[in-house]
């Protein structure tokens, strides 16, 4: 068929065109693979490599006896990859996850920014939900289950103010270099010791360099820098004491601080009402947050360090020490007829019929106001002020967490400076029994009673177990003075007529002092007063009397008489503390 010359020509033309096309393809290949190859190689690496931060297990917090107070609990979350998920599955999935269909639809469609970014649908799935989904994996393409770790506070709200809670980084914290190693969605300590010791508790996050596929699923682990677990933390808290104290408060508002006599370690610190830190563990719900914030009792306020109250008759301990140190004899007596005149003004004693003739011991035991009016007038309030400061009142204790209030111990100089007024003699009278300007925090009162009972050692309170106590100062008072006062405080609880009889214990000898701080000036029978006008009830205590191991201060807001409202709480806390450790573990249901 040689005649078909034009046909051969056409085929030749076709060949050239094809060759040209082939050359174009080769040039393009050259461009992509050789000229831009490096760039594409990098892109393909970053395509498939992900650096996943690995959060470090948070350190466990123990009480002073090694009882764990928190646990890291894994929980399940359901997420979807929008690229793979079929919207037709929404009604079915809503039923499985127990989420309203509209809410689920909204969640899925709201974050439709990239089909390759997972969307979290639900946190904290139940085991039933997880097993249902796992068994029907193929029904829900694009759905996957993730495991997160949350903090579980084993005793709920017990010790909440001391232990604190976790929360996501605040906008301010996320700019702070201190938190630069914290993964963006991680929880850090935002309150209590969780916050105070966050640095060591949170450990060091690790990294996993993994290969992922296009929808971000892990294919293979390439490199792992393990995380370093956070350091465990032993609190000085005795959870048995803490629980006994909080139980004793029941619904009442107030605070308790219990200190170890020999070190100032905090054995218990209560602020009632508290909050449930477990409700913060997976991110606090707006509803719970509003509930807390709108609560008139202000659960987020740590009353033990952030509220100050007139100490009432508990302050007579200081007045008594001042009197003894400044030369008043313990046997010198005063006759109480139910009141005392200063000029034309009568200062009443709480006992209208009077205490009769009392010396220091009985005056403390029965809390005779008239005796301490006189004692204060004898030594002058400036002296009382000095002794109050010596025992840790009127200054921040340095307990270290939360914003602590300093309280107030006035003197003439303070009055002149701050109020631009002279000190009136009547002010000496009322301040000597802990009314007037005098204001203290529960933690200060605990430091004070501890120093009085342990031989004058003012310790800085500590929330963690210490290798050695931090002595702020040794009160410069004679040992005999403290012995006399302690004897009297033992009498308050254990002698007939003692105002603190409600703190009497059959298992341990407790010494203490009641206080009833006036909220309003007119004194009426507290039973008939509206609660917000009732007096604050105080009790400061220590035990055992002969060789103290624990010192306690209790305040019950608007509790009425210190003897009836506050003393039983102190007693229960002390009794719980004196139990053997094994018994405490049993009470707290500790499983070894």
């Amino acid at each position: 068929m040689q005649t078909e010359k034009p046909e051969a020509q056409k085929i030749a033309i076709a060949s050239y065109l094809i060759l040209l096309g082939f050359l174009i393809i080769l040039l393009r290949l050259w461009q992509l693979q050789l000229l831009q190859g490096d760039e594409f190689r990098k892109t393909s690496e970053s395509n498939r490599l992900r650096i996943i931060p690995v959060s470090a297990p948070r350190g466990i917090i123990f009480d002073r006896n090694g009882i764990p107070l928190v646990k890291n609990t894994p929980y399940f979350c359901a997420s979807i990859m929008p690229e793979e998920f079929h919207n037709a599955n929404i009604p079915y999935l809503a039923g499985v996850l127990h989420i309203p269909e509209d809410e689920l639809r909204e969640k899925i469609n709201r974050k439709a920014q990239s089909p390759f970014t997972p969307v979290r649908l639900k946190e904290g799935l139940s085991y039933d939900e997880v097993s249902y989904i796992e068994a029907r994996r193929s029904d829900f393409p694009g759905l996957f289950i993730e495991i997160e770790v949350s903090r579980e506070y084993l005793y709920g709200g017990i010790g909440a103010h001391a232990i604190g809670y976790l929360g996501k980084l605040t906008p301010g914290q996320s700019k702070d270099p201190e938190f630069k190693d914290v993964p963006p969605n991680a929880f850090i300590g935002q309150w209590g010791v969780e916050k105070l010791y966050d640095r060591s508790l949170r450990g060091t996050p690790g990294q996993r360099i993994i290969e992922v596929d296009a929808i971000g699923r892990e294919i293979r682990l390439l490199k792992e820098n393990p995380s370093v677990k956070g350091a465990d933390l032993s609190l000085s808290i005795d959870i048995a004491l803490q629980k006994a104290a909080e139980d004793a408060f029941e619904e009442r508002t107030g605070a308790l601080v219990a200190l170890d006599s020999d070190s100032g370690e905090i054995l218990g610190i209560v602020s009632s009402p508290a909050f449930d830190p477990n409700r913060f563990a997976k991110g606090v719900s707006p509803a719970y947050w509003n509930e807390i914030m709108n609560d008139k009792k202000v659960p987020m306020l740590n009353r033990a360090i952030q509220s100050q109250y007139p100490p009432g008759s508990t302050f007579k301990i200081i007045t008594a020490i001042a009197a003894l140190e400044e030369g008043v004899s313990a046997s010198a007596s005063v006759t109480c007829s139910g009141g005392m005149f200063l000029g034309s003004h009568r200062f009443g004693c709480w006992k209208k019929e009077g205490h009769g003739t009392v010396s220091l011991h009985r005056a403390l035991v029965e809390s005779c106001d008239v005796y301490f009016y006189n004692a204060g007038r004898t030594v002058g309030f400036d002296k009382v002020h000095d002794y109050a400061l010596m025992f840790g009142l009127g200054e921040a204790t340095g307990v270290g967490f939360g914003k602590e209030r300093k309280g107030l111990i006035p003197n003439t100089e303070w009055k002149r400076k701050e109020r631009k007024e002279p000190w009136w003699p009547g002010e000496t009278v009322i301040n000597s029994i802990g009314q007037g300007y005098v204001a203290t925090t529960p933690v200060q009162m605990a430091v004070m009673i501890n120093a009085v009972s342990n031989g004058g050692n003012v310790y800085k309170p500590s929330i963690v177990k210490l290798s050695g106590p931090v002595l702020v100062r040794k009160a410069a008072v004679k040992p005999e003075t403290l012995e006399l006062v302690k004897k009297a405080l033992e009498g308050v609880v254990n002698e007939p007529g003692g105002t603190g009889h409600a703190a009497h214990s059959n298992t341990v000898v407790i010494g203490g002092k009641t206080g009833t701080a006036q909220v309003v000036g007119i004194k009426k029978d507290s039973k008939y007063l509206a609660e917000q006008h009732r007096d604050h009830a105080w009790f400061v205590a220590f035990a055992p009397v002969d060789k103290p191991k624990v010192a306690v201060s209790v305040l019950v807001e608007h509790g009425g008489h210190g003897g009836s409202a506050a003393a039983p709480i102190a007693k229960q806390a002390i009794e719980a503390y004196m139990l053997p450790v094994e018994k405490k573990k049993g009470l707290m249901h500790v499983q070894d």
Partner: protein
Amino acid sequence: MFRIDRRLIQNFDWLTLAIVILISIIGILTIFSATRQPSAGEAAQASFYIKQIVWLIISILALILFISFDYVWLGRIALPVYVTGLILLLIVLISGRTGMGAQRWISLGPLSFQPSEFFKLMFIIMLSNYYSFSRESLGVTGLLRVFFFIVFIPFVLLFKQPDLGTAIVILLIFASVSLAKGLYKKVIIMIVVIGMISLPFLGNIMWTGLKDYQKNRLIAFIEPDVDPAGIGYHINQSKIAIGSGEFFGKGYLNGTQGPFRFLPEKHTDFIFAVFAEEWGFVGSTFLLSLYLLLIMRGLDTASKAKDDFGRLLALGITFMFCVYFFVNVGMTLGIMPVVGIPLPFMSYGGTALLSNYISIGVLINVRTHRFSLFY
């Protein structure tokens, strides 16, 4: 009809067969790599390559069958075969199984196949046969007659499916075979002029007739960076796969774009990208050269055919592979729009492999029987 004489063995086109089988083996190896499950936890669903091996064996048998008789017979049964093809396309349109937003499949019990795959060859046979009746160059009326009676109906049916890729391939085969057949110069000029004038209108009609995903592909071709995670995703990921192969490639089974599912349709339309990632510029050039050799051999077969039917048949088949090759590779390289057509012999797909082998069978037939006179 089924005689095998010595001359046939002597003239057998071993080269074409060898090239095609070599490409198919490379294809199976690449499918294996593209569909392997890199994470052990996932259920092994990588049976694609096994299916492809089974299809390859079936295809080779079919190829032998289509060499065993003189291709001249194909011309004699061209019309009934063509009508059958049209009916199949119609059936697909009426009651097809939907895949990827388009109806392309017919189910026959456990089997399902795409009639459009076989229709292309039927179309080429019909066209070549018709053109071989007359040795005259085509005038306007002749061309229009062919267009309306042979091309227009299947084009509409395919466009409606919609199988845009095959529809365009049909058009291109029609154009190239007509050119090979011979057109008067004034006809060519006229077509070019009319084409240029009507292009905007045609383009508009075509555009409104396209499905959204087809429109997106065209947009993505023009501007792939518009939406890298969306419509430009295929092209960008394909370019990353190919480019990251660099000169020597990442090595077999070391590619990441395909198995990690960054690259969609990695074992079908984008298989060349998977290959290029693992074998680099060197391997790609080798593979492309095999295709070039196959096409050149096809042209050579056409030039050596004993009659016009054989010549046009060989050209039609060669052009078909040519179109597939350039459109597919051009698409994976980002120099052609994403038209969903596979790379012959490489891409996963049983029907396509079978129809391609049958086509190659016919091509070899034309060469093998070029000396046998059997009228």
